[in-house]
């Protein structure tokens, strides 16, 4: 049985803050994701016990830059793409 079922998809969608419109859409995602995750289990047949994970392609360490002053974005620029602005700030719906 697949690790992916309807409840997993709903749980993950909640974590990702994506509303799934209806039960039918949730079922479709479940089917599609189950197929992909089942396929990924191909990796199970590889012995990786003595391998270290490779998180990055190029081994760069401690990249530093001079800590110098520079002009930041203006408030106007920073807000220029926002749909909802009030008193020079991003406006959002209530949190609770």
């Amino acid at each position, binding site marked *: 049985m697949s*690790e*992916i079922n309807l409840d*997993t*998809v709903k*749980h*993950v*969608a909640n*974590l*990702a*803050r*994506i*509303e*799934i*419109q209806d039960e039918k859409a949730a079922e479709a*995602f479940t089917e*599609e*994701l189950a*197929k*992909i*995750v089942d*396929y*990924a*289990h*191909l*990796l199970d047949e*590889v012995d*990786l016990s003595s*391998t*270290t*994970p*490779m*998180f*990055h*392609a*190029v081994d*760069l360490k401690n*990249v530093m*830059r001079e800590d110098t002053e520079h002009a930041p*974005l203006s408030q106007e*620029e*920073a807000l*220029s*793409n*926002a*749909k*909802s602005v009030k008193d020079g700030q*991003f406006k*959002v*719906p*209530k*949190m*609770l």
Partner: protein
Amino acid sequence: MNIHELTVEALYEKIQSKEIKPSEIVGALFDRIEASDETIGSFLFLNKEDALKQAQALDQLQEEDRMDGPLFGIPMGIKDNICTKDILTTCASRMLEDFRPVYDATVMEKLNDSNAILMGKQNMDEFAMGGSTENSYFKNVRNPWDTNAVPGGSSGGSAAAVAAGYVPFSLGSDTGGSVRQPAAFCGVVGMKPTYGRVSRYGLVAFASSLDQIGPITRNVRDNAKILELISGTHNKDATSVPDLDADFLKGIDKDLTGMKIALPKEFIGEGISTEVEESVKKAAETFRSLGATVEEVSIPHTKYVVSAYYLIASSEASSNLARFDGIRYGYKAEGAETLEEHYKKTRAEGFGPEVKRRILLGTFVLSAGHYDQHYIRAQKLRGVIEKEMKDLFNEYDLILGPTAPTPAYNIGEKSDDQLEMYKDDILTIPANLTGMPALSIPSGLSGSGRPIGLQLIGDHFDEQKIYNAAFKFEEQFNLHEELKQLKLEVR
């Protein structure tokens, strides 16, 4: 003289010798785009007014013999996930339908400083997720070679525009093959540089440890020239590598005698179409006739790269795309009562189905209980592939193979089965997982007249060797004349 047939280098010479004005080039190319891009669909936005204005200013400088910049007067098209200051950058997503960046990507700074002219922003799979450009929120792209065929993806608009003669070069981005595979499908040249060669600052992030920006051109020399110009570090991309030599045109025509090329048997095995396999074998013969040796080798873990890639890329995507909250920029859903509802509705309405699938997959892979099982094991597999390829580079100069298992398929043919489409990325993914540079060049035409792409993979920072081999190959086989004959009509 047909302006749309000219390469970057040819255009540059004609501008320098004052045979032609930048405004004439730009005018002729906009005429061509407006005549047929309604069919092809390669551009999402045309920068016409500004491009004509800039061209006229360059006309004036040309007259005064002040033609500064290595791309003085050369038109370009840019994939719509590369930030252009004040100019729409949509990622072909409803989420960013009206987004205007407040800064230029590093590559745009460099190209603008070179006096290249931005013609417009190019269509793509939404957020670069896809292999056929059928995931664009706005419209499909048709392949200029056969308008029933997909152009490949995700940089489908960028490759189609170069093949169609709309621009002499485009920039795309490549996370799992998104520059090379559309270049192969459209019969043009596409490079995914070594990870870190080109600054990613201003490229809308998909999978940060895999993404690279790369050029798409009609020939190998133009490609080398554009990569030289966009290479380089930026202090806002800490993964871009400083102080690299990027002089790819030097020695590009060097004799190939003594070059050792590896042909992994997994790259021409199961799942690869006969036409593609034959084209690669013929290319191997061509390389032998040029003095190189080509030997069959093995990259035993090739069959696992698709699994590893989709686990890693989706994980990184789920994290990167968390920024689209509908607050600071982008689409905002109406009618939400609370902040949480606002996020959920905005992301449900703003993202298309493929983007959601990948975010959900990535969120699953990174969630408690699955991280070690999937994410860590995928990263381990990545290390295994890198070691297998690095071992080959101890003995060989380049790795040869096809770019894609088949030539371009028909629009709609595969769009219902994501997994089958994912599996098609098996040949391009290894270069992204390992960070190695890889180029696609045309190596043949299928029976139905669709281009076949050949891939050359190099060791880290060995782009020069790739360009050398590709240039010599191109002298023996190219599609330059065929590209000039393309009709751009719906059949």
